[in-house]
């Protein structure tokens, strides 16, 4: 546990003269609970730093945390709770499945949301003008993955595996299209149930399809097992994963040996961002653990939101939305951020990294 | 004309033949007993007549219509009711609710009536209650009407079963060991009850009993089974003195009187 997770109680209220209420939506229970912690911590850190420097336009940020459990129904309840508590904006959102319905709730209430991790292309596709994504979407990522497998590695036969979650299936489908556009052939397009541990029958099927490259689009826990069993069964070709699996636990679960050479498509995570050095240090100091893969993005997301509020000059929701929209080259660890009409990044910054000697490296 | 006719009825369980090529008839309006050693196939016979067991072979005709292969619920609708040797009341329901169940097959209200409380539905509900109440009164247990069946003394439970069977308004009533667990005085009352039932409801009664005093007094006709086969049939006087029956079933008592 950490300071960030126990503050949900200050029920009634709305922003007061001296405080700005900002909602944080993330999964702190359920299978993605760890990511939720990482995100909450980073946002707390950003808010504390801003408050230490005097807050936004003289008002202090007060965070209200809501657990979405990575589940649409819980997310809706959580979103409604945030709305009723009078938050002026929301930051967070790790799971697309949870963020999708929640974004509708914020949209209806006119509340802006800065989505810090969730990145299914379906989120912007809703056309809600209040929603902004600071992570590149699956459209960008699928492109990058296809490019890596087909153009860079010269793979002809590509296998794609997802876990049927909203995000992973979306990424898988987009990647499939991208691969085919680039002249590759998708020889296997499969799904697994992520709660399970044994993927050998699927992998045996893959083995038979003789892929040059295999791409896992879902999360790290099942991904690690998949890689391990992939190697164990001797499936040919390389294996790579999407940004949902970008966590060092992936390597631990797969085992260093099996994980070696796995590629990862991702937005730059803290360790690849030289600018994030001081963030890494203060985060580690405060929470006595290293930041997670989406900590830096969340930290930036909070700062970006604060910037927009201060530019808006008020806590009026519409004004904040307008200010967010007008964000021009806001400096983040990953580069300068501006938004397109649909609320996604003007320029995404997906990179491909690799497991070398049991570590992610460029 | 006979109400029920059984022809060459056989029932096998794996290697065991519990009823073996049995044929007999039940004349309308009679009170008849089926006796025989434990395991002779008496209850099995009832189970086949009421559709709970499917005969291996043979035929059962009720009012000239075959019952083999029919569901128990249908057979009840056709007019055969029974009680169970090992009581099968609805344990967590009151006596009244238990007896009301008997009226199910004689009534027809469905979902519509239930939801909209139609006049027909209300009338039917009243009918069910009054018939059930009458049956409870008739067997003489009205002071237990609202008690839960499972908490009643054994003998009372037996009476509830009889009332419940009566509520189905049967033409043929099958009683499986109605006197078991009753003491002497209660048995006397039971004999009285059985006679009154026939008179009042004008039906045919077949009972399985081990109490020879009761059998002797109440039955007009006796069928004796042993190892699933008929070994004797006739009036009480004939049957109870039949040496085969004495040997297989009654035994020679040291002192003269029949047990009660």
């Amino acid at each position, binding site marked *: 546990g950490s300071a960030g997770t126990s503050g949900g109680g200050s029920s009634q209220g709305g922003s007061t003269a001296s405080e700005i209420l900002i909602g944080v939506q993330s999964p702190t229970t*359920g299978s993605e609970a760890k990511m939720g912690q990482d995100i909450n911590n980073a946002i707390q850190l950003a808010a504390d730093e801003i408050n230490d420097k005097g807050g936004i336009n003289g008002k202090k940020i007060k965070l209200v945390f809501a657990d979405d459990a990575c589940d649409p129904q819980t997310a809706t309840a959580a979103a409604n709770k945030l709305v009723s508590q009078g938050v002026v904006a929301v930051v967070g959102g790790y799971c697309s499945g949870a963020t999708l319905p929640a974004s509708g709730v914020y949209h209806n209430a006119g509340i802006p949301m800065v989505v810090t991790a969730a990145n299914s292309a379906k989120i912007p596709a809703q056309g809600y003008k209040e929603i902004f994504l600071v992570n590149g979407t699956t459209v960008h990522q699928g492109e990058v993955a296809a490019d890596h497998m087909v153009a860079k590695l010269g793979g002809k036969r590509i296998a794609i595996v997802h876990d049927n979650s909203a995000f992973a299936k979306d990424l898988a489908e987009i990647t499939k299209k991208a691969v085919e556009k680039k002249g590759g052939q998708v020889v296997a397009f499969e*799904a697994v149930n992520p*709660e399970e541990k044994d993927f050998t029958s*699927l992998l045996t099927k893959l083995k*038979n399809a003789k892929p040059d490259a295999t791409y896992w689009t879902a999360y*790290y826990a099942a991904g690690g*097992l998949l890689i391990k069993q992939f190697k*164990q069964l001797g499936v040919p070709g390389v294996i790579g994963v999407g940004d949902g699996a970008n966590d060092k636990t992936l390597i631990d*679960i797969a085992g260093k040996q099996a994980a070696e050479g796995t590629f990862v498509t991702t937005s730059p995570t803290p360790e690849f961002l030289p600018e994030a050095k001081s963030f890494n240090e203060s985060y580690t100091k405060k929470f006595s653990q290293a930041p997670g893969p989406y900590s830096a993005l969340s930290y930036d997301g909070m700062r970006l939101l604060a910037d927009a509020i201060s530019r808006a000059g008020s806590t009026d929701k519409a004004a904040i939305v307008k200010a967010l929209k007008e964000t021009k080259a806001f400096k983040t660890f990953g580069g300068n951020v501006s938004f397109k009409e649909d609320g996604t990044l003007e320029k995404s910054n997906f990179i491909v990294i690799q497991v070398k000697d049991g570590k992610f490296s460029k | 004309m006979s109400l029920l006719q059984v022809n060459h009825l056989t029932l096998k369980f794996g290697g065991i033949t519990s009823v073996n090529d049995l044929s007999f008839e039940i004349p309308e309006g009679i009170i008849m007993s089926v006796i025989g050693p434990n395991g002779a196939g008496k209850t099995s016979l009832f189970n086949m007549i009421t559709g709970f067991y499917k005969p291996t072979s043979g035929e059962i005709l009720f009012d000239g219509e075959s019952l083999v292969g029919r569901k128990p619920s249908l057979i009840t609708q056709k007019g055969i009711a029974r009680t169970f040797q090992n009581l099968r009341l609805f344990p967590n329901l009151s006596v009244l609710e238990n007896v009301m169940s008997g009226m199910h097959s004689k009534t027809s209200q469905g979902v519509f009536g239930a939801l909209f409380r139609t006049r027909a539905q209300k009338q039917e509900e009243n009918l069910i209650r009054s018939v059930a109440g009458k049956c409870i009164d008739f067997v003489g247990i009205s002071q237990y009407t609202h008690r839960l069946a499972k908490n009643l003394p054994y003998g009372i439970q037996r009476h509830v079963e009889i009332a419940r069977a009566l509520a189905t308004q049967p033409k043929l009533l099958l009683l499986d060991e109605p006197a078991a667990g009753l003491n002497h005085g209660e048995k006397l009352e039971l004999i009285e009850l059985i006679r009154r039932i026939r008179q009042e409801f004008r039906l045919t009664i077949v009972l399985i009993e081990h109490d020879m005093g009761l059998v002797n007094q109440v039955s007009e006709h006796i069928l004796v089974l042993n190892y699933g086969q008929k070994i004797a049939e006739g009036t009480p006087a004939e049957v109870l003195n039949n040496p085969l029956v004495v040997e297989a079933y009654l035994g020679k008592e040291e002192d003269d009187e029949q047990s009660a």
Partner: protein
Amino acid sequence: MDIFIQQLTNALVVGSFYSLIALGYSMVYGIIKLLNFAHGDLYMIGAFAGFSALSLLSGDAGVLGIAMAFLAAMIVAGLFGIGIERVAYRPLLNSSRLTILITAVGVSLVLENGVMLTYGPSFKVFPSQLPITGFQIAGATVTYSQIGLILLSVLLMVALQWFVHRTLYGKAMRSIAIDQTATSLMGIPVHRIIGITFFIGSALAAAAGMMAGLYYGQINFMMGFIVGLKAFTAAVIGGIGSIPGAMLGGLVLGLLETFGTIYIGGEWKDVFAFAILILILTLKPTGLLGEKVTERM
């Protein structure tokens, strides 16, 4: 052909896990007719107990270390089982079965979240893992761990079957299942036997959890949920209460899932498996090896 053998091996491995858990499930069910929702969580408890034991040993534990960790896991989970029975089930043995079902759900939530609070929500990597060495047979890769796993579950099944059907304690378990009052009138200490049953069932689940840790290498506090459901399914398919049935049910489920994956795809495999299972139950309402009883009237 090689693919077929490989898939058969895969199916047997998955099936063995299901069987191992289903055995305990069926046993506990068999005695007090309780759908023990917490059973899958005892598998999880076993995995975490083994994890802690191995972590204490630190470094490469070796065969002896692993054996000790197994023992520790089984004892810890066994004691948990007894404790749960004592606190949450025993006082309710006379209540409706659904009542105990609720406490079982409650216990399950407590165990899962208790472990989450103690060990954290993230996936844990098991300190020792089974070697993935093996041999080729007809073109299929089979590891020694896989062989060991399959043998272990067969062995445990045989042992249990013997225990329940040949020993007096086992028979007492079955009689409790039928009629507790009558059993107590035989001079049989009903509660103690129920306790023993929980201990054995939980220890078996823990053995499976430990195996899962060693074999797959990754554990977390929710790991028991799906497996518990699958084991329940397996137990019912085999004929709940029947020990060879639990074993068979586990294997059948493993096969169905594997071949479902092959022919209709991983995302549909559970649909395939459940559809076949429903079909089986429609044709054979008491499961594959469940006894068909004609009720006497």
